[in-house]
């Protein structure tokens, strides 16, 4: 049954809320069970408490928040003041002056509590690695679509920036955002990537049959025809069948050893790593249209549609 239908079923909601209320009473001891239940769904009425529990917020944090200086002028005040009246203003609370004041307090408190971080509308340099991985992910699962989008110059830099920078809050209205975040909070870290991929896959027929102009129109209009719940489902499936190496960025340090994750080969004992097992720099990966799969993943890749081509010369083989 769809979450949107479950949310309107009073009996089901009563049952779920009783369960969560009980679990919340035993928090923090019950945190892992809360997360387990949250994977099923989160009743809207207890969402704030459940999100807090998933994030590990403790009662003493409230005291901390209350005592953080939220009034003193800061370097980001001007930008915050310009931005707040431009966020989800169709929403009753966020569009009200009271909502603006509250939002401002939260942002100021966060800034004060994280002096090493800054308020930015964007962090574009951080995004480059994200986009490289996303492009590879798309190529891995749907080469035809990937080639088509690249040919029409419709790159992730153009459409996916608000996706990952704001974790989709800038893309969808709040009611949909809640559903998405309910999943993001309890899913693997890379889940947003798969959710983005699921959006493209759902829009696939339309994307393949049109060019750049139609693409931008569709994405600028906030993807109204996208079925969020179907995307979440398909994102889970995609997540399960994707080899981890597609998602992996190169290690920070050049000397860092390769991920031995589950590797059963004797490669680790080789004195010098063979060419296929040496780390690839971010720049090199960006330049490559397809992802590289580590040997360790390759052995686990089983599918009827998998074709292996061995290009090693006889000596190495």
């Amino acid at each position, binding site marked *: 049954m769809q979450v949107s239908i479950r949310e309107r079923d009073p009996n089901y909601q009563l049952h779920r809320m009783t369960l969560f209320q009980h679990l919340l009473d035993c928090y923090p001891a019950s945190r892992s069970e809360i997360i387990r239940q949250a994977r099923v769904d989160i009743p809207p009425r207890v969402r704030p408490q459940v999100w807090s529990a998933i994030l590990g917020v403790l009662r003493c944090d409230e005291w901390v928040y209350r005592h953080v200086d939220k009034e003193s002028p800061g370097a980001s005040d001007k*930008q915050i003041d*310009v*931005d707040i*009246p*431009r*966020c*989800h*203003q*169709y929403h009753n609370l966020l*569009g009200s002056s009271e909502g603006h004041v509250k939002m401002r307090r939260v942002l100021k408190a966060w800034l004060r509590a994280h002096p090493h971080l800054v308020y*930015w*509308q*964007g*962090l*574009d*340099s951080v*995004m480059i690695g994200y986009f490289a991985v996303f492009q590879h992910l798309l190529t891995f699962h749907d080469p035809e679509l990937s080639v088509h989008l690249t040919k029409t110059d419709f790159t992730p*830099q*153009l459409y996916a*920036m*608000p996706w990952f*920078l*704001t974790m989709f809050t*800038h893309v969808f209205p709040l009611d949909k955002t809640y559903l998405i975040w309910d999943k993001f909070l309890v899913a693997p870290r890379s889940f947003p990537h798969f959710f983005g991929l699921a959006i493209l896959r759902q829009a696939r027929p339309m994307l393949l049959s049109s060019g750049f*102009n139609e693409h*931008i*129109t569709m*994405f*600028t209009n906030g993807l109204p025809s996208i079925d969020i719940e179907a995307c979440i489902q398909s994102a889970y499936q995609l997540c399960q069948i994707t080899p981890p190496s597609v998602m992996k960025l190169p290690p920070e340090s050049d000397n860092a050893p390769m991920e031995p994750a589950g590797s059963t080969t004797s490669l680790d004992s080789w004195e010098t790593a063979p060419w296929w097992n040496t780390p690839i720099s971010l720049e090199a990966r960006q330049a490559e249209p397809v992802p590289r799969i580590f040997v360790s993943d390759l052995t686990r890749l089983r599918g009827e549609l998998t074709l292996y081509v061995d290009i090693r010369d006889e000596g190495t083989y």
Partner: protein
Amino acid sequence: MASYAYLFKYIIIGDTGVGKSCLLLQFTDNRFQPAHDLTIGVEFGARIVTVGQKRIKLQIWDTAGQESFRSITRSYYRGAAGALLVYDITRRDTFDHLATWLEDARKYSNANITIMLIGNKCDLEAKRAVSREEGESFARENGLFFIETSAKTAANVEEAFVHTAADIHDKIQAGVLDVTNESSGIKLGPTQPNLSSFPSGSAETVRGCC
């Protein structure tokens, strides 16, 4: 009717909060939304205008104004035929930053780009912090067109977009811009341009009047 003779790529640049997205919305949808969502990265708009009896499709790239997006917005300049450089007449700092924006536009776009300087929010005369003369003289010194607009009242919004298109069209007619070169920001539409049409009047006569 979806046919058009040319497609021009435009880019809208300028400081955060000067009303870039509002100008675009007023131009494409004829409406003003004071609580317009902030722009993350880039957003797009499109509309067909008529210049010299030719239908021209404007494809407009509306960019985020904040500094932290700068390195990405730079990549959007490539292949733009027109740029709307926007400041807010009620915020002096947005005018002071024009030189930096212009420098980026000159550096990252093609040499023949047509740039329209826009002093927006001219409905807020009481809060004015930058005089029209200052805007005019900045435009003159840097070889830009100049107009004052209000995305709120729609004053001069149409003109800003259309006069930029007229200038680009003039450049095509004069052979300054090569329409077959992708980087010029111009593409031929699905129908071939009508060769017998006349170039429009000079766009130099544009002056703010709001």
